[in-house]
């Protein structure tokens, strides 16, 4: 592996994230475990969105839908006394897969502005659904008393959860790396650059986009399972349009269409949020301005501005 600034950044970020629990232990600050646990979860969600947004050029503004579906899969089963992690996982995968397939089939028939609006609308639809589910907390959401239990691994233990998330992230990054260079990945990337030419060469883009959409939905659902275990709470806010917006910001901030971009974006965004929250109660004002500035100034993002991308 060549030692480019990007690979160095990759190693540093991953090393840092891997060592957080050690530091948290030594310093006696469990807060950091929680904060970076969230960073990991959102990084996974952002990695899934990056497949669509960064490599596929599909501006999905409703990705939080799958985060929420994953979380609610855990919450609802747990509420009914089922704490078997494998069942939680299965439920999340199946639900996200099916919803992803159906919504993807509708959504991918449109392009441009319509696509953005419809992804937003679908997420909103499920947001209202969760709000109206009074048995599962409705608008306020509800607590989860038993996390996902995988037998040897119990995800409601913070340390287990952290390292499970971390390992999952590593596996995902490796898988993405392979996916991007594979035939499937080339079709997705080619379609973003020049869909017309892709069709002229004989590719029918829709099945590939739909597959990417479903894969992305399922991975985001996994992030949802993790977040439910992290907060031990489920709430419609996971599906809020603002959450979708934050995911998009993370991907762009970190660097669209780069491997580590989503991770860097998640780290940068959540840390920035913490800093701003500590500084002023009107942090949303500042955050909003910062986002506008980011867009105006540079869209290549943190990793995007580092030389050394492959291909």
């Amino acid at each position: 592996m060549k030692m480019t600034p990007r690979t160095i950044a990759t190693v540093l970020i991953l090393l840092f994230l891997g060592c957080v629990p050690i530091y948290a232990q030594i310093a006696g600050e469990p807060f950091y475990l929680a904060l970076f646990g969230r960073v990991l979860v959102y990084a996974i969600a952002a990695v899934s969105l990056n497949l669509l947004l960064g490599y596929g050029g599909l501006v999905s503004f409703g990705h939080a839908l799958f985060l929420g579906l994953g979380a609610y899969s855990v919450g609802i089963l747990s509420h009914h006394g089922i704490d078997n992690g494998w069942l939680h996982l299965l439920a999340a995968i199946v639900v996200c897969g099916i919803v992803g397939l159906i919504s993807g089939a509708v959504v991918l028939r449109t392009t441009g502005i319509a696509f953005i609006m419809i992804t937003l609308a679908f997420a909103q639809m499920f947001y209202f659904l969760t709000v109206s589910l009074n048995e599962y907390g409705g608008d306020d959401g509800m607590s989860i008393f038993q996390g996902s239990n995988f037998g040897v691994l119990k995800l409601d233990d913070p340390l287990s959860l952290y390292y499970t998330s971390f390992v999952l992230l590593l596996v995902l990054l490796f898988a993405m790396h392979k996916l991007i260079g594979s035939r499937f990945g080339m079709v997705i990337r080619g379609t973003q650059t020049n869909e017309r030419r892709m069709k002229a060469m004989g590719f029918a883009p829709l099945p590939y986009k739909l597959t990417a959409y479903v894969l992305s939905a399922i991975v985001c659902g996994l992030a949802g399972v993790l977040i439910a275990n992290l907060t031990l709470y489920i709430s419609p806010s996971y599906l809020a349009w603002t959450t979708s917006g934050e995911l998009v910001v993370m991907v762009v901030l970190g660097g669209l269409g780069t491997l580590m971009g989503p991770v860097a974006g998640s780290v940068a965004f959540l840390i920035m949020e913490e800093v701003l929250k500590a500084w002023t109660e009107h942090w949303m004002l500042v955050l909003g301005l910062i986002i506008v500035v980011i867009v105006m100034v540079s869209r290549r993002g943190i990793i995007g501005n580092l030389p050394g991308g492959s291909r």
Partner: protein
Amino acid sequence: MTLLRADHLIKRYGGLTVTDDVSMTVNAGEIHAVIGPNGAGKTTLIGQLSGEIKSNSGTISFDGNDITALPIEQRVRRGLARSYQITSVFPDFTALQNVALAVQAQRGHSFRFWEPTTVARELNDPAHQALELVGLASRAGTRVGDMAHGEHRQLELAMALACEPRMLLLDEPMAGMSQRESETMTELLLRLRGKYAMLLVEHDMEAVFALSDCITVLVYGKKIASGTPDEIRRNEDVKTAYLGEEDDDLAAHPAAQEA
């Protein structure tokens, strides 16, 4: 034998008839040029033949099969590929990757999620061959966005060839090329003649007369003449159509003087 047959093709945009009852045939291995003054509807015709533009009426058959209703991706699979007048490639990929992608389209489905395409020999070997054919072998690893315009036109051709077509629809392959570049491209097309049938839209008259087995002339969407280069040279309607339209007066053109 007839490979491509277009019957009574019509294309209207609102009140404007761009393709007006055009019928033509292209035989296997032959180079059939379509010429005409600007605005004659040549690119629209290619669009209709390739499948990107839906005709208002008329039929198209390829190798005996009716392809009128088929979308472009299926026509390519049957052996009818096109290149573009305005270069349409993938600037961030290398030349090899561009062509390999075209090869990939012909090799079954692409639901393979793991093996890197960079080491896929069944993709890269034919891609290398296509690049060699068009003279871009040395630029295989170059990022296309960094290549010159003339090289882009060569790449266009390589990508069309990589689709393993039986017939090529070439939309001004020499657009924007220098004299020397045009000559190279003409030699290249001559080498390909016989192996591939070609429908060639071009403004470069020297190339058209050097290459074509058959020429069709379109004026305002209507076919006004069709025949061998000699017949076209002598055709009065064609001369009228061109006189005063372009500096490239057909009758006065040096290429047209050759007996």
